[in-house]
């Protein structure tokens, strides 16, 4: 038996806020449960059969009382709702300058890919004191990436990217768990986050089996799978130019626009007919089944490395 922990370590910038909220709710729970328990115990004893308490004029309704105990809980709820929602909005959007790390969940392991090319399995090395954004997708069923010490969790879905971010505040090792049931070895689909001081992290990035950076690997895929054939410079190919497209607003065939974020780029590779750029035909081959999520991520990183967003959206063949 390994001791009796009663409260998890708080190792991210958001954790103290979540703990404060938890404590607030706990205090409210203890106060109100206490109130109820006390009232019931008190009445049950004082007004027990045979006691000499005053039972004259018992009431069975009181509008002021009903309104009070509707509006007070409503007000308290309101307070916690606002507290929780504002904290949630901070948790939801990563601050600028975050380190992006790709995570792929598959039955029953986690594959991590750093932009610099480092790959890990069931381990996630991150720098201390910098925001880290995880860009996650699943190769099969729904998983979920949960880091209790950071108080964050996000379901990891097949067919799209989901993200979560954190900023670690203490060096050390922390559990991460898969927290969406995913089959036989769901409970073994866990690992550790290793938070390192910046210098140590740089050394780790350089030292551990580096491989090429993701963008470089993506460029190699771009050539190998023939993407370059159609996606030429200056819109001279059958597909739009990708230089500068990242995070631009593109006009779509059939009306509407889309922001060429990671999800759009991913979808355009795997399901190209879904959102075709205006002026182009839906002739791009479907790459679903031909590329692993890791490879897709590398292509996305390559395209993002080509710069963007453009100021004016350019669509249409010339």
């Amino acid at each position, binding site marked *: 038996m390994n001791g009796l922990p009663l409260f998890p370590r708080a190792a991210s910038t958001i954790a103290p806020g979540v703990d404060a909220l938890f404590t607030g709710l706990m205090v409210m729970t203890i106060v109100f449960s206490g109130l109820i328990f006390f009232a019931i115990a008190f009445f049950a004893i004082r007004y027990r059969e045979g006691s000499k308490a005053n039972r004259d004029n018992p009431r069975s309704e009181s509008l002021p009382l009903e309104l009070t105990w509707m509006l007070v809980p409503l007000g308290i709820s309101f307070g916690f709702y606002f507290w929780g929602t504002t904290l949630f909005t901070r948790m939801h959007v990563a601050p600028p300058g975050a380190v992006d790390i790709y995570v792929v969940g598959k039955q029953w392991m986690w594959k991590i890919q750093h932009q610099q090319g480092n790959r890990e399995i069931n381990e996630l090395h991150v720098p201390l004191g910098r925001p880290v954004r995880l860009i996650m997708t699943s190769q099969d069923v729904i998983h979920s990436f949960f880091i209790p010490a950071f108080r964050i969790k996000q379901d990891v879905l097949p067919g799209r990217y989901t993200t979560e971010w954190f900023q670690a505040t203490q060096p050390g090792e922390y559990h991460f768990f898969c927290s969406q049931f995913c089959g036989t070895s769901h409970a073994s689909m866990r690992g550790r986050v290793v938070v390192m001081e910046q210098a140590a992290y740089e050394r780790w990035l350089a030292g551990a089996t580096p491989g090429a950076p993701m963008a470089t690997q993506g460029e190699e895929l771009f050539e190998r799978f023939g993407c370059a054939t159609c996606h030429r410079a200056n819109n001279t190919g059958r597909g739009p130019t990708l230089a500068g497209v990242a995070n631009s607003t593109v006009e779509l065939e*059939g009306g509407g626009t889309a922001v060429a974020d990671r999800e759009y780029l991913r979808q355009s590779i795997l*399901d190209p*007919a*879904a959102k075709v750029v205006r002026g182009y035909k839906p002739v791009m081959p479907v790459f679903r089944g031909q590329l692993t999520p890791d490879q897709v991520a590398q292509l996305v990183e390559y395209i993002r490395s080509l710069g963007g967003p453009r100021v004016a959206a350019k669509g249409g063949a010339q």
Partner: protein
Amino acid sequence: MSENRALVAHQFDTAAQQRGAATLGMWIFLATEVLFFGGMLMAYTVYRVTEGEAFAHASRAQNILLGGINTAVLLTSSLTMALAVHAAQGGRRTRSVMMLASTMALGALFLGVKGVEYAEKFAEHLVPGVDFHWAGPDAGGAQIYFILYFLLTGFHALHLAIGIGVIAVLTARAARGRYSAAYSTPVEVAGLYWHFVDIVWIFLYPLIYLIRVYR
């Protein structure tokens, strides 16, 4: 056997109470059916929004003529059903039997036409999970369209078939003079059910068949 007296079950005090209970019961059952089809229609709506192009393309494979004929058939069957209810309430044995039989026949015609439509889909390889081949670029969306098509119209047809079965029983009983002004509740509540099945189709037809008309 003269059936001018209503048969009041032991748990009820009066025939009026029994009739009110049966009618309320059928309305509640229809509410459950609204939610049942509603769940499917919700799925349909979600995909109609997210896969609008695919749905529009896929709907071109529908036979609007057959669908339109079926709509007319079903609407007419609601008319004959309403007339059957009216006849039963008036104790008019022959007329009620004829109207009930007509309703059944029209329902059967609907199912027959549906069968032709389904056969067409099989011939054109548009049956997801069994034999599906879509040449266009939006195969995923088209497949979802056709799966929902079969689910929606299939469950509808199932409800219709059950309705025909119920009306068959009612026709036999009407032929034996079971229904009169004093007691025609089963025909009335069956009428409610039949009209409901009709209304579901009124929703399905424009949603599934007529996309290209308004898009």
